């Protein structure tokens, strides 16, 4: 448990603020703000995942030492792949929700 070096106060505070701001925006009435809130929340979740990847690969793997893997600061690839998926799906969600909101507006108008 002692090896997790990244556990410091500022990260936790920042992440807590981000999560809470996302939650706060989701609780608002206007739909646009709710969409913003979802985006902020997804950013927070992505960073959670990123930190999980950092804290779990402290020791270098033989694959890195033998030079097959060229990265200097190696991050666990699994959280990275998860984050990639998360980014894309959040983008799809954002676009769909925006269109939904806007067409509802215009549909009500005409």
């Amino acid at each position, binding site marked *: 448990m002692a090896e997790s070096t990244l556990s410091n106060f500022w990260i936790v505070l*920042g992440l807590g*603020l981000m999560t809470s701001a996302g939650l706060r925006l989701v*609780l*608002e009435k206007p739909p646009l703000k709710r969409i913003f809130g979802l*985006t902020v929340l997804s950013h927070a979740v992505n960073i959670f995942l990123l930190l999980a990847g950092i804290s*779990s690969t402290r020791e270098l*793997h033989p694959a890195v030492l033998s030079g*097959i893997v060229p990265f200097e600061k190696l991050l666990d690839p699994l959280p990275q*792949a998860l984050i990639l998926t998360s980014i894309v799906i959040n*983008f799809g969600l954002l676009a769909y929700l925006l269109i939904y909101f806007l067409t509802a507006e215009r549909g009500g108008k005409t």
Partner: protein
Amino acid sequence: MCFGMNLDPALLITILLLLHVSSFLMGGALIFILVSFCELLLILYAQPYFFASSLSFFDIVCTPYRQIFGAIVSLIALSTGILALPSSKRLWVKGSAFFALLGIFEWSCLMAIFSDHALSFFSGWEIASWTSFLLIYTGFPGTPDRLSSEKSFSILILSSLADFCLLAGLILLANRVGTYSLSALTHTSVMTNEIIALMLIAAFIKSAQVPFQFWLPKAMVAPLPVSAYLHSASLIQLGAFLLLLFWPAGHSSLVWHIGITTVGLLTFSLCGVFSLFERNIKRALAYTTSSTLGLVFTLLGLTHERALAAAVLLIVAHALYKSFLFFCLGISNKSTDHKIARLVFYSTLLIVLISMSGLPFSLGALGKDLALQSLLGPFPTHAVQIFTWFCVSIGMVANIVFVCLFFFAFKRGQLHRVIEMRTLTSFLPVFSLLALLSMGLGLLPAWLFERIQAEIGNANSTGNSPGNSPEVHLWSLGIWFIGFALALFLFKRGWVSFLRKSERPLFEFSWLEKLHSKWIPSLCERLLGNTENIFWNYGLGIIFASLFFFVAISGFPLGLPLRLRFQNTYEEVLSLTIFLLGLGSWLLVFIRASLRQIFLLSALGLGVCLCFASAGAADLVLTQLLVEMISLVILIFSWMTLRPKERTHLRLGENLFFSVFAILIGLGIALQFFDLNLIPLVKLASLYFYEHASQSGGTNLVNLAVIEFRALDTLGEITVLALSFLAALALFERVSISSRHASQVFFSVSIWTKTISRILSILLCASALFFFARGHYSFGGGFVGGLLAGLALFLQQIVFRKTFQTPNLCITGICISYISAVTPILFGHRFFETSVFAIHGYTFSTSFFFDLGVFITVAGSGAGLLNLFTVLIPKRSEKMNG
């Protein structure tokens, strides 16, 4: 009643007191006479059937934890008697009967606790359960509630079942061992699974654990002193005492561990949640009792000494605080009219609630801390660990929510009261003393811990004093935040059944309201440059940015002045960026104009990019950058579509309650993840490391993870993207905006625009192909390339008014991906399996086709989505009409 009229009141009270005390003592004496008689009978008539005739029914063993139990039983009995005294002032016969029953109950409990003979242990247990039933059934003089015969019958059946199981277990065990001496029985190693199961059923019923938890709330129709005594301190803890007694013997059995811990965890979480949905406050308190005993049981199911110590501590703390909470229910508003009495009462209530919720400097906190540290221990599998911590989190959150709600309700006088008797204020000090005792014990953690370790005896314990692992404290703090926020929410919405609904605000902090709705928003507006002042507009931003980049680029040791310990620069940048992102996202809450919010959101996205970059994740940076840019464009388009009224009237930061709620929940969650080792994440990275080089012939691990091994995930991802585009298209056509709008662009296209677009689209196409091709070996890949190609298509659409069949493109891409996933099955490979060919010295991997599918899908849906947004923007004339 009438013959006492001409007597002196002081004399009357003395006589009454003497009468009650003597009936209490007589009750105790009755037990001893009864037991002696039984023993005599046994010796006379059943001598040949007993193994050890030398063992008497009255042999006593005094181990430390028996002393602790005995002390609790006598202490709470004493205070209960005092509590019951004023109500029985004018009831001579019924009052005396009550005190006699109380005496019988206490002495039988003590006999069960201290006796060394298995049969006298059993008879103590049996008499206690029957007496408790009588106490509940006859009711206290003057109470309207009586146990209905239906309810009492089910309770009676259940407690008889417990007694039968215990007797059967004890006799079976005694027959195997050949003695009735408890000190021998509890240390044997010949416990079979049947005996253990019988014992466990007895303990579960007695302590109201999960399958049998229903009897305790039913028994809550008993008068307050009885509830306070029987159902928080003595009867309910006999089950835990049984387990504690047989702890050394059950140690080696798997049934013992699994049974107790599973039932305990389930009770801890379920009863905690039930307590929040109970209409009657007494029944809710009964559920919290079950819940706490569930945690005690979980600890008793573990093997090491520290868990045992934690369990004993929790039992003591629980007995001390729970009896006071019952006492609170009897307090009416009138009896706290006196100023000092009110002060004493509320401070005691606060101490008790602190102890119950496990805040520091109380006995409860010590117990909970020790309990959590025992639960850190090694687990057989990840699943068990996740289950354990899930149950523990739920139970603790429910506990804290209950405590907060209880406090709020008392503060507002909103409890649905069940006043059966009015306790007099003069007896308050007795209970305050109990609470102070728990506080005092809690203030001496080191001393108490040493004492427990010395007395319970520890061969294996490493001598860790409580409070050694900070993760547990932070975890509990996070739990506290979440619980408090949930309690606020439930209270505000009036969703808790034992509270009456109220419209008044719970707390009134006018300065906080002002801070939230005036000062912070104006500061945020200034920070974003909404003034004429040139310093606020530019200077601040420049200073901020230069400081940031100075740290980021030069590697200035920022950690030193802030007293942080970083390993290297990128961690500094990472933590600084995350902190700034947190501040920035709250800025987003407080500023008003929505266009500014859109740009701030994009800035946050870029900050996230910086985080990814400082952690060394190149693929993530590329993807996030592109997605962020496209999101910005989309958001600006949608802003342009909005009517002018809505653009300005999206004000934020009005509701203080939501802000408090969000901050508590957010910080709570962040603290939960402060140390990720508490909650195991699946760490499979080494598998990828080992397999990537041999099987797929690529070097970009992230992309390989995406394309080769986690391709299913990517398949789902592009399907979602394509579906969102197609669904958006369908929505778009539903509101009958005809497609001829598509050709009419909202801005005029000049020759310069055309020229630049032509160059740009060539560049975009080239870079798309470049990133697509190198994705296998270095950062890039199908997704990034697809987004770039989508941008190029979009440029062609908007500037040169070309129409592409983007939905068809999208569907084609999806089809290619699915076919490339299924094809390996035809050749006898696994689903999605990649084959590597070497053609003329160049390696070629079949995952290329899948990547191609991703590329086409992303390009099609990206371009299509962007185009949809441009079409939605109303033309200027239309806007005028609207």
